[in-house]
């Protein structure tokens, strides 16, 4: 009976630790040039910028923003990134994608491309540029196995920082509707007393949720967004 409680206690501790996680702060800024005009039947495309050789906007961040934002009942229909990029190959490949709204209007001179965009009902194209990086780390954890058993001991900590900027292009009006930036920071901890207990700060995930919430307000007309 005693051995069972010995097992359960660290497990409960680990679960509680996982549930609490590390701390994250998210700051969202918005610059708006026009009000949201997303209507029934309109679609939004969320795309990641991947032209830099030093970093690339993570596909899972783009999926996360898209999945969080997608809500047909609320009037937001998001086209998955890969589906859209494949359907318009090769015009939205990392090194060919339009960098400015003016280049987009030039792209619309190609009838097949324009038709495909209209078939999808694209109203907004949201370009997300940025990445999440581990900025610093400290501490160490050592693990050993012996005839008496195995275990780890030590303490590790690391900081992560997310820095993203979303540019919202109004495809139909061919103009920049605004920009949203998300800066998130968080510290994760990993104390290890026999068993390592990760206290993970979900920095990228929190940046994603913050951006998606702000984008929803941005894209929908004022009365629909407040609903």
């Amino acid at each position: 009976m005693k051995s069972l409680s010995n097992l359960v206690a660290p497990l409960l501790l680990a679960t509680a630790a996982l549930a609490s996680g590390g701390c994250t702060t998210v700051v969202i800024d918005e610059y708006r040039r026009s009000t949201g005009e997303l209507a029934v039947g309109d679609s939004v495309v969320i795309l990641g910028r991947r032209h830099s050789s030093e970093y690339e906007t993570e596909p899972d961040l783009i999926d996360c923003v898209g999945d969080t934002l997608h809500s047909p009942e609320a009037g937001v229909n998001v086209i998955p990134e890969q589906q859209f990029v494949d359907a318009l190959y090769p015009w939205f490949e990392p090194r060919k994608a339009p960098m400015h709204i003016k280049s987009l209007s030039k792209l619309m001179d190609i009838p097949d491309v324009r038709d495909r965009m209209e078939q999808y009902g694209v109203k907004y194209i949201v370009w997300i540029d940025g990445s999440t990086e581990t900025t610093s780390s400290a501490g160490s954890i050592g693990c050993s196995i012996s005839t008496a058993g195995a275990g780890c001991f030590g303490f590790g900590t690391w900081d992560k920082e997310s820095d993203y900027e979303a540019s919202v292009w109004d495809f139909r009006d061919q103009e920049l509707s605004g920009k949203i930036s998300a800066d998130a920071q968080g510290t994760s901890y990993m104390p290890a007393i026999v068993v390592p207990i990760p206290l993970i700060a979900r920095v990228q995930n929190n940046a994603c949720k913050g951006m998606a919430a702000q984008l929803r307000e941005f894209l929908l007309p004022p009365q629909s967004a407040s609903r």
Partner: protein
Amino acid sequence: MTIWLNGLRTMGRLTAVLAAVLLTACAHTVSVDGQFPTPVGNQHPLTVGVYLSDDFRQFTYSENRDDRDEWNINTGRAQKNLFETVLGSMFRETISLAQYPSDLPQGLDLVIVPEVRELQFTMPRETRVNIFEVWIKYDMHAYNQRGDSVAEWVITAYGKTPTAFLKSQEAALAQAINVALRDAGATLYTGFTQVPELQAFIVNKQRALSMQEVTGEK
């Protein structure tokens, strides 16, 4: 003495087996087999023959350097798929040629023959960035029906994996190569009319077609 000789032979065999095992352990084989989307855009008014040589269809990049493990990277099937898909959608009519330059069908405006000039890659431990990167360079040749060179140009392609996290080296490299091949297809498609000789060739063809239409109408 016989025992010594037998012992030495056994040791020799063991060393050979051990060396073989170690060599196999350090050799990596990657076979890339990508499918690529059909490009969207205008078709050029040309009838084009495409010759993908056996070397091209079965291309394998092999590398065995002292500072790296042995790598054998087969991109043949994927690049065959890519060039067939992209070139197949670029022109009014595309004919796949089983041989070149003999037995060419009549009525071809151009014959396009791609060749791999170079493939390079870097691993995360070499660049200290947690991504795999790939560069591929193709030499492109365009000939007329008589076999004269119309244009020669180079396509450079770049691909990288977003991260090497939770992937084998082989899977990560295959993913980076697929990204590079998509980039090659994009450059081939969008850069075709930026080659001056090809631009002039298409303009001449369009002019000839409009002349035909005018004389036909009359």
